């Protein structure tokens, strides 16, 4: 009872704080500052039709690298904790429905993920959502089998490879043009083609593979935790 009242009190205080801000909010109808600059020069600068990807991978690529590092440390900690404190019962046999779905669905899911990852400079998508969707295809395959996942030795190798690729692509810009993650180390080509926009597709692919292997590693650790088969 006291707990419920306390929660309600905290909620009311938060609501009051939020409503006091509302009159000061301004609805912007036009871009200004950096946003205007990105929208005006983005296509010319990077050759990427999807301006969101241009900002994420090219203009603010260093922030994305930081994000990848954060995700890496989070995944590593989860796997460490799960290996130190085993949890639950270990793998169980899949039900009939899961076992049969896992034979059909992973291929189309993987296709969608590869599309999102490789076409991020042309249409909405990107390395992060593509990677998580890839990991969910892997998860479905894993849930459909009754043994511990195979290939858990390949996952760390893939993760290291893609992380190194991201870093080296960035350093390539430092070596040749004096700017980390410069997009123009290779030509930007014709905007609208699959092979265009400089290193953006390569970086997206590296991010996608890295995110996919990290989440797959977390899932495999979850699955294995608490008993082997």
């Amino acid at each position, binding site marked *: 009872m006291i707990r*419920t009242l306390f*929660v309600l009190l905290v*909620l009311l205080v938060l609501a009051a704080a939020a409503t006091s801000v509302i009159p000061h909010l301004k609805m912007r109808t036009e871009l200004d500052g950096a946003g205007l600059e990105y929208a005006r020069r983005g296509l010319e600068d990077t050759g990427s039709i*999807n301006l*969101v*990807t241009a900002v994420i991978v090219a203009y603010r690529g260093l922030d994305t690298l930081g994000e990848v590092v954060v995700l890496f440390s989070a995944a590593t900690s989860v796997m460490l904790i799960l290996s130190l404190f085993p*949890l*639950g*019962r270990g793998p169980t046999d899949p039900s009939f429905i899961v076992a049969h779905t896992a034979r059909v669905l992973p291929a189309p899911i993987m296709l969608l993920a590869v599309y*999102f990852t490789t076409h991020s400079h042309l249409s*909405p*998508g*990107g390395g*992060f*959502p593509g990677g*998580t*969707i890839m*990991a*969910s295809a892997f*998860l479905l395959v894993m849930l459909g089998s009754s043994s511990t996942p195979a290939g858990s030795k390949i996952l760390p190798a893939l993760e290291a490879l893609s992380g190194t690729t991201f870093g080296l692509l960035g350093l390539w810009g430092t070596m040749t043009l004096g700017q980390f993650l410069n997009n123009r180390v290779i030509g930007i080509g014709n905007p609208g083609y699959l092979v265009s926009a400089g290193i953006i597709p390569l970086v997206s692919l590296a991010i996608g593979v890295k995110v996919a292997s990290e*989440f797959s590693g*977390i899932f495999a650790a*979850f699955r294995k*935790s*608490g008993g082997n088969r």
Partner: protein
Amino acid sequence: MNPSLASALAVFLGGMMLAASVVVLFVRDLLSAIIITGMISLSASVLFLLMDATDVAITEASIGAVLATLIFLWGKGKMGGRE
């Protein structure tokens, strides 16, 4: 989409998210709490779509609505009956 229809949908989804986020604090069953959290994420993804932020909508749907819910559900399954 028709602008007034879009804003009606946005107000409906926003109100539902607010209500759900209050309800989730008081619900007793862990499974219900996880499903409600997933529903909030899915509504957020639709809101992003209404604001023409397709990239963010895709990311929110794949990470917030699917992956986080899945990990919570899995954790609940691993814990068994204990809550």
